[in-house]
């Protein structure tokens, strides 16, 4: 941060700040609050005079970084970007940083959509007709990808890739970020029926591999399958049912892996590792009625209670008593 606030610099000397008009209460002079309210006083002045300048643009950035959900500032910034004919690629970079700081701001995601919409409308022709192959879900005008010359198709593919990669970064932080998923659907649809629809399926496969209960990824899968270029054919329905069967992994699948981990000193103290083993042995004891599995389950519970996770000692001891109700063959 600058040592001198912008409003104390000579290039701002000609602006008369407009203080907030809501009552006579003077501000308690806490440094940050004063800084914020002074900044807002200048912002009001710039808004009222409708100044179109570099410093006005810079001021919107300062205000946004202080308070990213202040929607009026975003609109002001969009007007200025257009009036000053700014390079929007730089703006996208800044948005990338802003959204990593504020992943749940409606305004930041909308701003990105406005920019990408604008950039694409300059580079690519828009189609006002609804695509014939798309399902009835899509009614907004989209880009007729297949009718474009190869150079424009490439431009579209490049833009889509940048956007999808950007969104994927946000989803790595929070795989259920509603804004990120909404914007992702907009990007996929806006640029028409390009190859990204097919690629999206393998992206979703990866997310479901990590977390089979990721309801956002399942929703996206439904969206792709039901609105994608191929449509909801019988063959696709059969493929999807097949995937659902594969998605159910039995717990026993990770037994060997977990037992292997125990032998490594770095992992041996993990409560997650040992509680997973407890679950595995418990399930084995219930399903196969093996006395050995039950006794392994009990020693995991004892280990967790006494050594590995004593803060939840009462829980693990309770869990151990629950194990007593399992009947096994002698």
């Amino acid at each position, binding site marked *: 941060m600058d040592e001198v606030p912008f409003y104390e610099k000579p290039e701002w000397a000609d602006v008369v700040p407009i203080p907030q008009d809501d009552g006579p*209460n003077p*501000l308690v002079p806490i440094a940050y609050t004063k800084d914020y309210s002074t900044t807002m006083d200048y912002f009001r002045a710039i808004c009222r005079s409708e100044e179109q300048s570099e410093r006005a643009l810079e001021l919107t950035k300062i205000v946004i970084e202080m308070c990213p959900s202040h*929607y009026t500032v975003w609109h002001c910034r*969009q007007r200025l970007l257009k009036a000053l004919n700014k390079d929007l690629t730089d703006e996208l970079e800044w948005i990338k940083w802003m959204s990593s700081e504020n992943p749940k701001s409606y305004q930041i995601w909308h701003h990105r959509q406005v920019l990408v919409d604008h950039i694409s409308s300059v580079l690519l022709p828009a189609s006002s007709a609804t695509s014939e192959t798309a399902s009835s879900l899509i009614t*907004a005008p989209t880009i007729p990808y297949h009718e474009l010359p190869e150079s424009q198709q490439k431009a579209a593919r490049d833009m889509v890739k940048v956007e999808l990669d950007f969104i994927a970064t946000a989803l790595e932080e929070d795989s259920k970020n509603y804004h990120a998923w909404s914007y992702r659907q907009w990007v996929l649809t806006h640029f028409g029926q390009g190859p990204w629809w097919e690629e999206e399926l393998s992206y979703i496969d990866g997310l479901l591999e990590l977390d089979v209960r990721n309801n956002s990824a399942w*929703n996206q899968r439904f969206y792709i399958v039901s609105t994608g270029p191929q449509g909801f054919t019988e063959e696709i329905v059969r493929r999807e049912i097949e995937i659902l069967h594969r998605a159910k992994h039995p717990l026993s699948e990770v037994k060997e892996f977990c037992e292997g981990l125990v032998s490594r000193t770095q992992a041996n103290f993990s409560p997650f590792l040992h509680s997973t083993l407890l679950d595995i042995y418990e399930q084995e004891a219930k399903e196969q009625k093996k006395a050995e599995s039950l006794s392994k389950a009990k020693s995991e519970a004892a280990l967790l209670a006494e050594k590995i996770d004593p803060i939840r000692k009462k829980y693990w001891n309770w869990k151990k008593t629950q194990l007593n109700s399992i009947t096994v063959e002698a």
Partner: protein
Amino acid sequence: MSNLNDNDSSPPLEPALPELLVDQHVKYIQALDTKKNDLEYWLTEHLRVNGLYWGSTALHILGHPDALDKEQIVDYLVKCQHEDGGIGGHIDHDPHILSTLSAVQVLITYDRLDAINVDKVVDYVVSLQNDDGSFSGDSWGETDTRFIFCAVMCLSLLKRLDDKRVDLQKTIDYIVRCRNFDGGFGNSPGGESHAAQVYVCVGTLTILGALHHVDADQLGWWLSERQLKSGGLNGRPEKLEDVCYSWWVLSSLSMLKRRHWIDAPKLTRFILESQDTETGGIADRPGNIPDVFHTNFGICGLSLLGHPGLVAVDPVYCMPRHVIQRIGLHSDKH
């Protein structure tokens, strides 16, 4: 209480249900506008009009309609109306449908709709409809089913649903396109089901008399699955419970006449345990810092649950039921 049986088979006694701290909540809301030395006050500047709606609604439901200065509120809201008829989130902020609806709700609650230019509000709302039947949030175009509900509720409260410039059949068609395979609704066609988006879509269909587009059994089940062991409700599967979903989920269940599908005593306990016993106000979940948004939706949730001592709330408009009756909108449908 007398003679507790010393019987081993009796279930363990639950701790006593916390009391609803009416007086503390009233003081908490009254003090909100005096916290100008808090950073939070300035960072929420764009939500000031929404904040007034949350605060004044909570006070009305708590049975303290006079706890804020009515004339001061009316004067302030008048200053937030723009030339195009829309109302901004604060003085000098651009108009937006979210703050326009909040202002209309507050003015109707205080019976002071005469203070603003209603025809112009209608002009503004009408101007936000898109060709596909949806509504944008402001003149800059962000579209979301939330904004549709705000627009439709606004026109309904102002008795202007018959305005010839809007096509509400298209709006119904758009909402139907937002319906998902699980019976729920998202923010746009194809968007994931989310309890708050369900509320706005079901609310829109209720106001427009088109609830037959909803499979009430399927959606009712999805909504009741939102209740977790703590008694609280979440907004989507595998997410944490949060007091504000007491409103989004419970109001939707009310409109679908399936409020009894969830465990009301457990939800009541969850909301009451989310109260801040030191400062007043209700947080998103027990132990967190309260705010006026969760305070309002917690109290309105308790009202829908029939908690004693509270004024009845309308499940569609989220305003006192007697106000909705006064303006002649209430029906016994829910």
